């Protein structure tokens, strides 16, 4: 029977035909745990009688949400996880590597066709390389660590077919915000969103990661892009496996087929307090901002900072805006460092922090006060997400973030002179 890429991933793993709607106990190729949901997962693993994890090679552990430890409670969590890693022979990436999803992909331990879970909702990002990956809670993670398998209801898919060429200073983040605004915060609940089309084929991996990362913001279980030459090129040096074909059949069945053309797509902004509350940038131009955050697993890669730096040019950021620049990983940090971008951001007045989640989750530093507004390249603008519940968070692309940080108010990046 004709199958979607997701059905093919599960079928290949199980050695028989698996279709959307099937409930199966699937073996796991990797399981990712970090500092805030990991400790609870470890406790649950033990409560389940767990003595040895199913396969230490398949456990990806690191700390990114509260790093370096910002409280004694965080330090205790890190200590507990380090001890678990030592006891279980798990390689621990600890605090220095960066944000979990970026590090997981860079590690080469997540590959096309894999089934991967992570105790973090944005685990859906690994679909960017053609893996089926999804976020789970800590008890499901405890079970995963214990048994190396988990119950899945194989999801139906929505096909998002993208055509056209982005206008200058618009890009993947504007596209995914546009799609979320269209499909809605629960429009893809339990489903996978498969991104295809000429725009995706010509998109760099960083952009594909941005799109898949935010599949959860539509309620989705996964986002996925069929692996192609760009994917295999990106994986060079990370794995020895040979490229293989993995894509949906022409006649595969989709719950919905959505066509988007990006030729006329203007910069998009998600306004408080829902990610699907998306408008064209002109609707919110002039909105005063107190803080700008460029970074996160959604937009913390070299391409994102290059996009911001191109808008910035030789200018300075507004002295009235606190600008936080936080690369998603040490690898990406080195890339932007070597390209001279760190120097440019610091000269312009930004505060550059070491790779971590930063203010995205509002659990560590860089929080906003009541009445303050944050403009952020991250993935969530829920009430209280980045600090005070009386604050506001807007989401945008790195280009829009840079243009706005210069002006001190939300600004269309296309209006900033080259």
């Amino acid at each position, binding site marked *: 029977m004709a199958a979607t890429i997701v059905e093919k991933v599960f079928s290949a793993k199980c050695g028989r035909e698996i279709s959307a709607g099937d409930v199966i*106990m699937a073996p796991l190729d990797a399981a990712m745990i970090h500092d805030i949901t990991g400790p609870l997962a470890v406790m649950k693993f033990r409560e389940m009688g767990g003595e040895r994890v199913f396969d230490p090679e398949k456990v990806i552990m690191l700390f990114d949400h509260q790093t370096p430890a910002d409280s004694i409670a965080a330090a205790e969590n890190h200590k507990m996880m380090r001890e678990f890693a030592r006891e279980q022979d798990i390689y621990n990436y600890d605090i220095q590597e960066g944000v979990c999803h970026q590090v997981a992909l860079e590690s080469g331990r997540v590959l096309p066709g894999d089934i991967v879970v992570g105790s973090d909702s944005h685990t859906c990002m690994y679909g960017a390389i053609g893996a089926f990956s999804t976020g789970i809670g800590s008890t499901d993670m405890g079970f995963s660590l214990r048994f190396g398998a988990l119950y899945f209801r194989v999801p139906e898919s929505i096909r998002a077919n993208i055509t056209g060429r982005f206008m200058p200073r618009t890009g993947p983040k504007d596209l995914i915000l546009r799609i979320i605004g269209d499909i809605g915060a629960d429009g893809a609940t339990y489903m996978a969103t498969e991104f295809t089309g000429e725009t995706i084929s010509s998109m760099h991996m960083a952009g594909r990661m941005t799109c898949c990362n935010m599949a959860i913001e539509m309620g989705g279980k996964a986002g996925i892009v069929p692996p192609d030459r760009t994917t295999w090129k990106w994986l060079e040096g990370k794995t020895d496996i040979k490229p293989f074909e993995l894509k949906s059949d022409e006649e595969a069945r989709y719950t919905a087929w959505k066509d988007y053309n990006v030729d006329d797509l203007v910069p998009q902004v998600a306004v408080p307090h829902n990610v699907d509350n998306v408008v064209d940038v002109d609707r919110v131009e002039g909105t005063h901002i107190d803080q700008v955050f460029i970074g996160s697993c959604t937009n913390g890669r070299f391409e994102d900072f290059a996009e911001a730096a191109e808008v910035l040019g030789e200018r300075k950021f507004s002295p009235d805006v606190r600008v936080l620049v936080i690369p998603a990983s040490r690898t990406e940090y080195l890339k932007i460092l070597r390209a001279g971008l760190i120097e440019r951001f610091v000269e312009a007045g930004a505060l550059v922090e070491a790779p971590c989640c930063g203010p995205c989750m*509002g659990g560590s530093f860089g929080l906003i006060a009541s009445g303050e507004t944050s403009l952020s390249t991250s993935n969530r603008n829920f009430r209280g997400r980045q600090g005070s519940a009386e604050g506001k968070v807007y989401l945008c692309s790195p280009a829009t973030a840079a243009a706005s940080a210069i002006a001190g108010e939300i600004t269309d990046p296309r209006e900033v002179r080259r």
Partner: protein
Amino acid sequence: MKVWKFGDDIDTDAIIPGRYLTLYDPKVLASHAFEGIRDDFSNECKEGDMIVANRNFGCGSSREHAPIALKGAGISAVIAKSFARIFYRNCVNTGLLPVVCPEADRISEEDEIVLHIDEGYLEAGGARYGIEPVPEFLQKIIDCGGLVEYANTIEEVKTCTE
């Protein structure tokens, strides 16, 4: 029992803010539930109270601290028109009952709710509303009282490859 009514898209950041995720004690987490969003909740929620919400309850983060906080506050069931996927599963896994009721918006805070799970309906304010059955594979976990309890009944799992 009291009914705590909520609207659409109640996210897990609202249920328990990110700054409390270093905590694990259900009672302590409960003291911060809906902080800054609905401050009377943590003070007044009692054992056996229920949450009634509209669409997409529990969207966002995978933090299991959210159902743990609600359970710690005494919530016995969360009734909603629909749930976000991860939260729903986290509820089942941690032994907090999630109830899908397509007409949940018709229930008011003054109603007394009686659940008839096996019969597929609930009573609220003198009216009957249908509730959707739990997927079969999750029912086993609910019957055990949670995933830890379920896991302790098995030695190993049989995967789809076998």
